[in-house]
């Protein structure tokens, strides 16, 4: 496999402000890399650095094993789709798509052939003579994609391309981008603040916060073994439950003692955990707390808890309870008999537990 994008020790400062700190990322040909994080985390700046639209302070960026540090955007063999679509308002759709080729001096016959091919691929043949102002949001999105596709670049860059669409269209376009990625086998870097988009699209996710890379991994790695409390909280919806707990270590593993206010503490046993400090934060996904019907092979612990709130959501019902001073969400089947204010038996899937250090926030297991 060829390395398509290789970012080494990248720093970016605006004056005294560090926007990006020591970023190292590598992707192979055909990868779909998603940069995800809250706004202001530096993900868009990183994308602009890859595109060459912003200069980097130190470090290096290579695309297709060529050092790009001082290469201008037009020579980087990239294409980019923007949040606002950035369609040229006075040009027709066709001219929007072919403008880049025209600037590069590509002959008319080639331009038209490529235009036709891309228009067909994106089903925008009927729109070619219109102005961007006459298009709907979804159509503009397609045209912006067309402008990128026609370049046939080494690397596609997407800067929050779906955030201006309504919810339904966003899901449709998400699927379409994923299909496109499959068909073309192209390499892509995609910026979003929406963790669901990240999970569904990526082959590789970079989670960022405050200009620092928090974790790099496949969607399932990020989901099941988050590297720190930030990633645990940010990725997944509803979010991972993060419950403070005391730890007693004995011969048979660890005993987790979770405060329940006026009630007796909840005690769970994790036989596989070792070397935990006296206090930890337990990370457990809502689907790993079930009702009595949850049947997993081993490592199940059951306990009675008081139900605070019941939120039916169709196929599933979310049940909220209070543990360790935190609101904890459990996902149970939709036909549950759970009722707020009543006690109910919950099952905890101990094999899926994450442990975090309360001080550093780092993962312990």
């Amino acid at each position: 496999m060829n390395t398509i994008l290789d970012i080494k020790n990248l720093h970016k400062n605006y004056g005294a402000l560090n926007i990006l700190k020591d970023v190292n990322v590598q992707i192979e040909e055909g990868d779909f890399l998603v940069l995800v994080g809250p706004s202001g985390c530096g993900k868009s700046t990183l994308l602009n650095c890859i595109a060459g639209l912003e200069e980097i302070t130190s470090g290096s960026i290579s695309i297709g094993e060529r050092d790009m540090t001082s290469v201008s955007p037009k020579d980087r063999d990239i294409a980019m789709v923007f949040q606002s679509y950035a369609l040229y308002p006075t040009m027709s759709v066709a001219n929007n798509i072919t403008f880049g080729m025209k600037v590069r001096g590509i002959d008319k016959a080639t331009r038209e052939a490529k235009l036709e091919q891309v228009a067909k691929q994106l089903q925008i043949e009927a729109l070619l003579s219109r102005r961007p102002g006459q298009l709907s949001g979804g159509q503009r999105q397609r045209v912006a994609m067309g402008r990128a596709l026609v370049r046939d670049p080494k690397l596609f860059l997407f800067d929050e391309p779906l955030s201006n669409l309504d919810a339904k269209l966003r899901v449709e376009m998400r699927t379409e981008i994923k299909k496109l990625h499959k068909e073309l086998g192209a390499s892509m870097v995609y910026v979003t603040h929406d963790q669901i988009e990240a999970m569904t699209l990526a082959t590789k996710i970079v989670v960022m916060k405050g200009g620092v890379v928090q974790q790099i991994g496949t969607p399932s790695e990020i989901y099941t073994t988050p590297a720190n409390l930030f990633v645990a909280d940010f990725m997944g919806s509803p979010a991972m439950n993060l419950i403070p707990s005391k730890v007693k270590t004995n011969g048979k593993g660890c005993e987790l003692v979770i405060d329940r206010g006026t009630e007796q503490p909840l005690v769970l046993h994790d036989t596989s955990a070792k070397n935990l400090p006296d206090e930890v934060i337990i990370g457990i996904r809502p689907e790993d707390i079930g009702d009595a019907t949850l049947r997993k092979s081993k490592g199940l612990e059951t306990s009675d808890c008081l139900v605070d709130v019941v939120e039916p959501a169709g196929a599933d019902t979310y049940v909220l309870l209070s543990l360790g001073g935190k609101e904890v969400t459990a996902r149970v089947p939709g036909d549950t008999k759970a009722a707020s204010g009543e006690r109910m038996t919950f099952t905890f899937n101990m094999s899926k537990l994450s442990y975090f250090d309360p001080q550093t926030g780092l993962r312990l297991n």
Partner: protein
Amino acid sequence: MDKTYNSSMKTAQTVILRIGLYVILSVFALYFLMPLFVMVTTSLKHLDEIRSGSLIALPRDITFDAWQIAWSQACTGIKCEGLSPYFWNSVSLAIPAVLLSTFIGALNGYVIAQWRFKGADIIFALMLFGCFIPFQVVLLPMAKLLGIMGLAGSIQGLIFVHVVYGIGFTTLFFRNYYVSISQELTKAAKIDGAGFFRIFWSIFLPLSLPIIVVTVIWQFTQIWNDFLFGVSFSQAGTQPVTVALNNIVNSTTGVKAYNVDMAAAIIAALPTLLVYILAGKYFIRGLTAGSVKG
């Protein structure tokens, strides 16, 4: 019963209020129109009718003699060739000065709004401040400089001065227009391979028609109506129309011909008035844009 009585009272009250409103608005309209009316009627009267009649009376028999004299015979000091040569002076200085300052302002605004670099904001602030200085403070050194450049008393010199001190405003206009256009547009074009000028010509200029109209009208009005630069940096023969008008009105030779003064004033005002009537919307937009930045 009571209710209908009350509501009819109320409608009567509103009607009276509305009438009062229109009366007040009309009175003010008369106040604003009166000088123009007086100018036009006076310019169409014979001198003896002016001396004997009332200021606001309509002319008894209309004559265009005053217009004829104002255009081609009135004395502006020693020479008596009317306003026409000076009118053409103004035309031939306003056109290049307007075009040049608009073009430079467009490029400047494009750079400041779309190609931000360190210090660009400071440069913009410095230029903006240049719009606000009282020009008296630059009159003396500019007179000296024009002398050194060999442009003293020439139309080219006046063009130069108007371009130099017009750029602040034209840059402001274009900057504020371009700043509202997403910078992603420039980014997209850069990735498409277009350079600085290509992006300007192919993408920004075609978008700019409204602001070009506003800027051209603003600059034209400013330059056509200018008096200070005109009177300071011109000499006999190169004066703009405003200076010539003032000379006609204040020339002490001969009988005071008020009808000629008024005809000359209207002639001098006609181009900008025409622009205002034809493109008032853009004129107002320029006025408000020049004062309310944002």
